[in-house]
């Protein structure tokens, strides 16, 4: 479909590329997001990329919907999806049973062994599709078909930060201790909230993520040799 531009309240425009999630739509999201960061329209405050659309927030004292929509229309003409790729990150995951309480349940639901679940999770190449829910919650698309399982019917409370969780096609590394209905496969020592003021979030939307397995001893060393 043609990109759809819709004014939002007094300070934003939503650009939608599709009604259903697809690789093609997300490529267009990434391309527009990149174009906006290279040539931000006058008065733009921020752009928020998601699965099929980009929200462009502007300062209503500096510009208006029509001017932002005109600038967006210009950018959309020359959009080049897939022109560049994001960074690739290798993220360590420890699948120790104490960190992955749902490995057995996922194995049972998918007719795989516990190792089969881990191997399948490790084979995926993931893309940071968008952030949402809470600071640093990056939705990573690319969970391989055999381990795509729905959410649990009820969320589990107190799931620790750093948990590597899956639901459907998506995987997520949590940044806070929170309830979740997703299946918990393991834990990563890598901090998505980096604590680095110059680059506070590890992934940009569009980046590629691969997982690599570490054992409990390595996890503890990464955590500062301070086992729980």
């Amino acid at each position, binding site marked *: 479909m043609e990109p759809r531009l819709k004014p*939002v*309240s007094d300070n934003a425009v939503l650009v939608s590329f599709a009604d259903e999630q697809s690789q093609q739509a997300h490529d267009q999201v990434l391309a527009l997001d990149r174009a906006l960061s290279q040539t931000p329209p006058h008065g733009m405050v921020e*752009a*928020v990329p998601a*699965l099929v659309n980009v*929200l462009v927030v502007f300062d209503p004292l500096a510009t208006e919907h029509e001017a932002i929509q005109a600038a967006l229309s210009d950018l959309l003409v020359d959009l080049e999806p897939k022109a560049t790729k994001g960074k690739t990150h290798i993220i360590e995951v420890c699948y120790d049973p104490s960190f992955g309480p749902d490995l057995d349940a996922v194995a049972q639901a998918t007719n795989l062994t516990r190792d089969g679940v881990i191997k399948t999770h490790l084979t995926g190449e993931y893309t940071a599709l*968008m952030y949402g829910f809470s600071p*640093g919650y990056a939705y990573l698309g690319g969970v391989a078909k055999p381990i795509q399982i729905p959410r649990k019917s009820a969320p589990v409370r107190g799931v620790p930060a750093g948990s590597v969780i899956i639901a459907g096609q998506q995987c997520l590394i949590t940044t806070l201790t929170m309830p979740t209905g997703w299946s918990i496969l393991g834990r990563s020592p890598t901090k998505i909230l980096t604590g680095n003021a110059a680059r506070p979030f590890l992934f940009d939307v569009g980046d590629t993520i691969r997982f690599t397995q570490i054992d409990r001893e390595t996890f503890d060393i990464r955590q500062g040799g301070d086992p729980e």
Partner: protein
Amino acid sequence: MTDAVLAVQYAGPLVSIQDEGRAGHMRFGVPQSGPMDRLSFRAAHAALGQDHTGSAIEVSLGGIILKCIKGAVTLAIAGGDFSVAHAGATSSNWTVLTIETGQTLSVRAGGSGSWAYIAFAGALQSRMWLGSAATHTLSGFGGGVIQAGDSLRITHPVAHEDRLGQIERPIGDDGPIRVVMGPQDHHFDDAAISALMSSAFNVSDAYDRMGMQLTGPKIPPKGALSIPSEPVCRGSIQVNGDGIATVLLADHQTTGGYPKIATVVSVDQDRLAQMRAGDPISFAAITPQDALALRRKATLQQARYLEAIAIPKGSLEQRLMRENLVGGIIADAPDD
């Protein structure tokens, strides 16, 4: 001057440190946060003659009790209609006072309003995150939620004798809360849209800094509930599968899979946030262009208001003289 230190003797839920917030991080899942009622926050700072870049305490309906255990500092309390007890006297808020060592200040919910702000003539020390002290309540990042037992330090405190007394309140809008339709109004049929526009809703008690759930007629979306997660903003009215509407506020999630039938315009977000559970609420749709024009007009009016309340009232002696003069003029006015 030596720092002022306030011991928190009591704090209700959702009392937190806020500043203007952190814009520009929504792409990483971080909303702006900041005050639920931005004009009142600014008024508290303005009444002390300072700009509104600093932080303040956001007081919820739960209230707060502070005891000054060191130093002294002038502070301003604005927002809603709260009740203030200090140095043996009780008054309404929208006031500037100085708290001294040994004195207690209590700010409690009054006749109306959900949020009040305590700003200090000095720098309220707090943790920062991404360059802002605004508390994101879900994560606790930023200055943080204030709890009994905490102690608050104000550096470079000033005692402003020439600013004590009442703060003139801003003139508020009434009437329906204005919204711009969409961005996902195409997921609703005419009946649902006309129900939103013509029905009386009420604020439910499911109300916190993330959002305000409403009670009232159901406005169910048309079938398609599996829409991809889309960016949301402050003011978005999202509707779940049961047709229940929630207005997203300062600590909103940045993306969500529920359709957003309409968005509350920014000029009406402060008064919406001051509503309480049970308060009636109705909506009226305006165009994005009208919403933007309203915002520009309100920004000018608010700037004038903030300038007016920033003018010092003068020393006690000057104020007494002025009051006497005014009293004299009134007393001497000829009868007609």
